[in-house]
């Protein structure tokens, strides 16, 4: 990136945050003359690995606290991470809900390949999978998915294509998918709230600008934009 004719602020954001952050970056550029925000998005794990290996970056926003904790433990961050938004799971079903799913209770049962309802979830290794397990425990059901995906978009893809009858994804994902899926609110979802942390980075070349960007995200405008995208407030009513 060229900062010959100005200052560049590099922001690494989880893919699920890419939309809102783009909006915020534009706003930031508008209010900061000569500053260009370069937004780079990807999987949280990838982003942390990139920072560790020396990717030039000023701000990091991940999709869960676990990956951010890794960054903190590696001393990559400058100051404690702050939560900017939360997210909860919903059941996504194809339009019209062909399998007639109403809630987690319909998905109870042992693994059965010929099950009439094909459920897809995230693998337990990834945050949304861990959340799914917690939600299922809270509901007292045993899930037997036909596939344990690596990412939310993989889960959503299966539902959108109609391959799966239901998938456990975040409410923001349901919102982003538009008409492609329908969301079913889960009462048990509050048991597993996902938090999105953001932090300035230790190696930042522009610590002041980074701080200003954090302020923007954490400020009213930030909240507004994130809420519009379907995210919950940083401190959900418990």
């Amino acid at each position, binding site marked *: 990136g060229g900062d010959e004719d100005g200052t560049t602020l590099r922001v690494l954001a989880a893919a699920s945050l890419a939309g809102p952050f783009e909006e915020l970056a534009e706003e930031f550029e508008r209010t900061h003359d000569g500053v260009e925000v370069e937004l780079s998005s990807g999987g949280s*794990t990838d982003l942390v*690995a990139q920072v560790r290996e020396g990717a030039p970056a000023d701000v990091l926003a991940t999709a869960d606290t676990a990956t951010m904790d890794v960054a903190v433990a590696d001393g990559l961050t400058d100051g404690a991470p702050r939560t900017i938004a939360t997210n909860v799971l919903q059941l996504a079903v194809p339009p019209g809900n062909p399998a007639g799913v109403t809630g987690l209770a319909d998905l109870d049962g042992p693994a059965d390949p010929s099950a009439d309802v*094909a459920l*897809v979830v995230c*693998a337990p*290794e*990834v945050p949304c999978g861990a959340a799914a397990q917690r939600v299922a425990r809270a509901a007292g059901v045993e899930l037997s*998915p*036909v*596939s*344990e*995906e*690596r990412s939310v978009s*993989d889960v959503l*893809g*299966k539902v959108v*294509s*109609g*391959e799966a009858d239901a998938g456990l994804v975040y409410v923001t994902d349901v919102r982003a998918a538009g008409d492609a899926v329908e969301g079913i609110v889960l009462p048990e979802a509050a048991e597993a709230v996902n938090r999105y942390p953001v932090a300035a980075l230790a190696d930042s070349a522009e610590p002041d600008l980074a701080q200003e960007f954090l302020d923007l995200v954490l400020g009213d405008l930030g909240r507004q934009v994130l809420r519009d995208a379907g995210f919950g407030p940083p401190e959900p009513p418990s």
Partner: protein
Amino acid sequence: MTPGVPRWLLAPAALGAAFVLLPLVAIVVRVPWGDFGELVTSEASREALLLSLRTSATSTVLCVLLGVPMAAVLARTSFPGRAVVRSLVLLPLVLPPVVGGLALLYTFGRRGLLGETLEVLGVQVAFSTAAVVLAQTFVALPFLVLSLEGSLRTAGERYELVAATLGARPTTVFRRVTLPLVLPGLLSGAVLAFARALGEFGATVTFAGSLEGVTRTMPTQIYLLRETDADGAVALSLLLVVVAVLVIGLATRGRAADRGLA
């Protein structure tokens, strides 16, 4: 007596080799050797590895069964639109694997082009091991076709023509002359296809999903592990690589050398 190569070629060749091999060394250095044994012998890894080997072998066979005829037709016949078909066959190469997986979903999925037909036949492809094989075959087929077609062209048609004048029917010519002559090319094509199938990830995840023992191949397992344990994922990759080298090494052992003049 081999004619050898110009001396100066060794420099870029070594550079190229280093470029490919250094990252491997880097991986080896990073692997947490202490946990290595445990990691690679874990139930999940074993299952994934076995599944990968099984599906990759099956897709390689499929690639050979479909790809050899395709290469032969491309190299030995001419029909209008041959050039177009040839470029289209390249497509799975260019298609980002995830999109390839989507394309397969759109074709073989429940709501895909062939979905209803398949459903009537009682075949359910998605989320099954068969889907893994399909995804791997889709991405690996072009390698076999292209490299074999190249070999067929280089080998030329003279021996086939001679065989025909000796009364050999096209099938006999194909079986007793064409195939034996391009065996090295077929072999390296199959190796390419097998390697590509073994490393396939994107299309598999998108099209087949990821369930231990059914659709979770080694690369998928590596991705998952990487979320929690990057070094572990690297170690597992190393295992995959070693297994691949062993399989390929065994398969291509004793390739005949060609001879010189006089």
